[in-house]
């Protein structure tokens, strides 16, 4: 009898022990499942984020390439333009050198005369003052002959006076005696007036087909 009771009592404890073990084991197993599930979810979410970030990075990379390409094109274009501008300026410098040589030659006198006639005709003749550079050609002008030509061209009796004032530029300036109106036929002024047109012409010659 006592032995049977002992067995029943022990059975109760054994069952409880088994159930306890089962409860703890279940909990333990659920830990692994839960951790694995969260890890899987993290990987899934990270994959979505990865795709989005890579898409953004590719877009940013395209922007970077576009920006660098644009800057490089602009820089290359600027360098080419700058060189063309430089070469055009060299032409103007060479023109000035040629003019300086021309002034020293006898060929300059008829040129200067034409500049005077042109300026005086523009002013319509009359009493006019001529302002020139201090060079020997300027002193060789035949004013009487010029007055006749201008008088004939304008129909107005013309008298020319060489001003005491001297200019550094090559060419001539003519003004009315009262100084109110002036025609600037110095080469600098002529080139400045026609700068756009001349640049275009120079560029066409130098860089056509470049």
């Amino acid at each position, binding site marked *: 009898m006592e032995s049977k009771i002992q067995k029943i009592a022990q059975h109760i404890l054994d069952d409880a022990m088994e159930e*306890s073990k089962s409860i703890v084991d279940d909990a333990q197993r*659920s*830990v692994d499942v839960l951790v694995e599930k969260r890890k899987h979810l993290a990987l899934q979410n990270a994959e979505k984020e*990865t795709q989005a970030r890579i898409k953004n990075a590719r877009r940013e*990379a395209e922007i970077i*390439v576009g920006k660098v390409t644009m800057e490089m094109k602009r820089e*290359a274009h600027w360098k080419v333009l700058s060189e063309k501008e430089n070469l055009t300026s060299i032409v103007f410098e060479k023109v000035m050198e040629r003019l300086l040589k021309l002034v020293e030659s006898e060929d300059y006198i008829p040129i200067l005369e034409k500049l005077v006639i042109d300026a005086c005709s523009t002013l319509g003749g009359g009493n006019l003052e001529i302002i020139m550079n201090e060079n020997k050609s300027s002193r060789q002008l035949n004013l009487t002959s010029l007055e006749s030509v201008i008088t004939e061209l304008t129909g107005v009796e013309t008298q020319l006076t060489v001003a005491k004032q001297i200019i550094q530029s090559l060419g001539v300036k003519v003004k009315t005696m009262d100084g109110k109106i002036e025609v600037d036929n110095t080469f600098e002024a002529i080139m400045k007036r026609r700068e756009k047109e001349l640049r275009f012409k120079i560029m066409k010659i130098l860089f056509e087909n470049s």
Partner: protein
Amino acid sequence: MVLGLLEAFKIIKDNEKEAERMIREAQTQAERIRSEAQQKAEMTYEKTWKGEIVKVEHQCSELKEKARENAKAEAEVFLRQAEEQIKEIRRKAQKKMQEAVDSVLSEILPKG
């Protein structure tokens, strides 16, 4: 005999109480395990997520850096081509310089 039965009931009752205690304790332990599991799962999530994000950030940086390097290399080639173009422009222009000077002079010197 009656005493014997009472003794037997007491033993069984005591063991039942002990069994209940054991199960309660197991349940408490299971609760603690589950609670710790939640924390462990969250930590695993964070660690996995951060690990993947660090990888992708590195990947993105590399992608952009490579694009930048490629663009720069391309730019250098393009600029070298521009330099060559400039040399060619200069070479051709030198040949026509005199023609351009003559043309300007013919424009600014009075005619006739």
